[in-house]
């Protein structure tokens, strides 16, 4: 089942203004993605861990997500040390493991996970509906916000529809295997999902028109930028500027 497991918490971070969280998560992600020095990256990783701690998230859940996302990183570790041109560190049979390859893999791993943890601490702690409203307030084009909110709204409905179809298939003795029958069944199932989705879209649109939909999506949610937000933005600006200085002034 799809669910936003981390969004329901009561920490300070959960209660912050989502606009602030989006802005800082974006700035931080870019700064770290463009950073290239180990001191910066370790400092960033520490900052991300600190925020995860402050958000008081279920660590098991966080760990599960982090492991899942590190698949591509694993590929880098398998391939890069062996293929990267550079000074050989030691030999694995006929293959040379290079220093540069290992350093680069390590760099990518730290970068990727620092950004990921920061994202989990700030963004995953906000419900998607709230994020949609915040994006609207941040002047992201209305159509795309509207599309995001509607897609999110119907993801769960469509997921139930899918569950119903797969249940029906299983009751009729369907078992997935390596054969044409499996592929055909899945293809028809997806086709049916799309047909049902189109019919549903028609009904949803009619219902919206019946309720006076005029092509504008109103956001009634008001956000307040009060004291905790001011303190948090000051602290985070300092942290991010600090990271920038360490990176570009080549301190430490």
């Amino acid at each position, binding site marked *: 089942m799809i669910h936003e497991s981390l969004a329901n918490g009561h920490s300070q971070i959960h209660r912050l203004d989502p606009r602030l969280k989006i802005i800082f998560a974006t700035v931080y992600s870019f700064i770290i993605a463009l950073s290239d020095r180990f001191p910066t990256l370790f400092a960033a990783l520490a900052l991300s861990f600190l925020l995860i701690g402050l958000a008081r998230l279920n660590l098991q859940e966080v760990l599960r997500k982090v492991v899942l996302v590190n698949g591509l990183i694993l590929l880098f570790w398998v*391939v890069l040390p062996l293929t990267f041109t550079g000074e050989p560190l030691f030999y694995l049979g006929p293959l040379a493991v290079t220093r540069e390859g290992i350093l680069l893999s390590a760099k990518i791993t730290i970068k990727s996970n620092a950004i990921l943890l920061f994202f989990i601490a700030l963004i995953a702690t906000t419900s*998607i509906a709230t994020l949609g409203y915040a994006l609207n307030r941040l002047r992201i084009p209305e159509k795309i916000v509207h*599309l995001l909110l509607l897609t*999110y709204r119907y*993801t769960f409905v469509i997921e139930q529809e899918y569950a119903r179809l797969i249940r029906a298939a299983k009751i009729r003795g369907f078992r997935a295997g390596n054969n044409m029958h499996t*592929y055909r069944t899945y293809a028809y199932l997806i086709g*049916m999902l799309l047909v049902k989705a*189109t019919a549903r879209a028609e009904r949803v*649109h009619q219902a919206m028109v019946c309720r006076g939909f005029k092509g504008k999506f109103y956001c009634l949610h008001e956000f307040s930028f009060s004291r905790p937000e001011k303190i948090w933005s000051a602290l985070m600006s300092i942290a991010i500027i600090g990271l920038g200085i360490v990176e570009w002034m080549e301190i430490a």
Partner: protein
Amino acid sequence: MHISEGVLSGQVLFSGMVLAAAGTAIGLKRIDYDRIPHTAILSASFFVASLIHVPIGPSSVHLILNGIVGLLLGWGAFPAILVALTLQALLFQFGGITTLGVNTMTMALPAVLCYYLFGSMVHKRNSIALFGSFACGAFSVFLGAIMVGLALVFTEENFFQVSTLLVISHLPVMVIEGIITAFCVTFLKKVQPAMLPGFHE
């Protein structure tokens, strides 16, 4: 086929964002407000369908389906895929803010290309339609994998082997996607032909 955060260089990330923004702008222009529920609900179905794991050999792969997205939505594939990827980042933390542009490009551009290349074939004779839809599914995945590979190589020449490995590992996915797309289009032709591009009564 996601590229994780923290891998690509600044130039690649920014080019991805600019191109994805342009594609999305064209896509949004083509969807008027009356079509938004349609695009949104199809986008939600692709999101759900991409969670299906199809067995292949001893392992399993999850579907990408950008070929069918392209066929059904045309340029609308850009906003639909952008939104689906945003949801994926929000719900599962696959991909992230900086890679959103690149990841949208690598999936949506092949989708739109396949729409133009193969869209007109689906209503032709059965053999042509079957070939067209298989090619649509397979080619969109292949092209996507190539684009991911290029994004990596443009970042760092030494990523060449990683890219090659990525493209090769997508070859079986390509075949599966081709087969699924072909069956799916056959199904839609029987059940709801008006959903496919270029349908005339």
